[in-house]
């Protein structure tokens, strides 16, 4: 299974910082709740890349038809894995970090002056994967 054997190659992918994309994307955001603040970790892919990534994750043959829901779900699962890694990096014995459930967005979630945003992209198996981290500049009320 591709996902089982390679995790889509995420562990070996080289991510390059990029400006926040503005085109329509398939996006999956996972909230990461940290005491005093929080993050939104997003995984974005253009429609063609999202189809490649979903097919890779699901190890489907060329005859498999992937619905928009299947693709969105696959991107959500990739986001879940990325967020899990970020969570493990932030959590300590005294800091409890909690993951929320994926939010699928067809389009682009923008930032404002209260939000910091960082993006980085990598090419994986012919697809372009962008990871976005949104963080509030001030503690949540």
């Amino acid at each position, binding site marked *: *299974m591709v*996902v*089982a*054997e390679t*995790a*889509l190659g*995420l562990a070996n992918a080289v991510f390059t910082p990029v400006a926040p994309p503005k085109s329509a994307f398939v996006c999956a955001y996972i909230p990461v709740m940290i005491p005093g603040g929080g993050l939104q970790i997003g995984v974005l892919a253009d429609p063609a890349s999202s189809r490649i990534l*979903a097919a890779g*994750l*699901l*190890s489907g043959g060329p005859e498999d038809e992937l619905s928009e*829901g*299947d693709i969105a*779900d*696959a991107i*959500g*699962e990739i986001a*879940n*894995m990325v*967020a*899990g*890694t970020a*969570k*493990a990096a932030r*959590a300590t*014995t005294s800091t409890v970090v909690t*993951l*929320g*459930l994926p939010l699928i967005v067809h389009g682009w979630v923008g930032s404002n002056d209260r939000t910091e945003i960082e993006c980085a992209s990598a090419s994986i198996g012919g697809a372009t994967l962008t990871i976005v981290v949104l963080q509030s500049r001030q503690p949540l009320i």
Partner: protein
Amino acid sequence: MRALVIDDSKAMRLILGRFLKAAGFEVREAIHGRDALTQLTEHGIVDLALVDWNMPEMSGIEFVQAIRADQAYVDMKLMMVTTESELGRVETALAAGADEYVMKPFTSDVLRDKLAMLGLVTT
């Protein structure tokens, strides 16, 4: 052998279901812990449940706790399959009654080895 895959992600249910079917299991699916409990009540006990942690309605850890509180399921093996990778989470799951713990992403070899440790497949 019968297995129940409990995950709100259709992609993960598909991946895990394929693996289990190839290993000879009859596979059912549930989209969260409460759905899984309903299925077990209505369609009978399974030998193995693969359980995600973060799900709506009822989380994986809540499902594990509910199952281990019921003697009817004493022989059912529970394996967490989750992105929760901190040692504290692993300890919590095992203390609640999970028999094994697999972190996503995983390899098919890891899954096979875990099932072998549970005595459900041979390597």
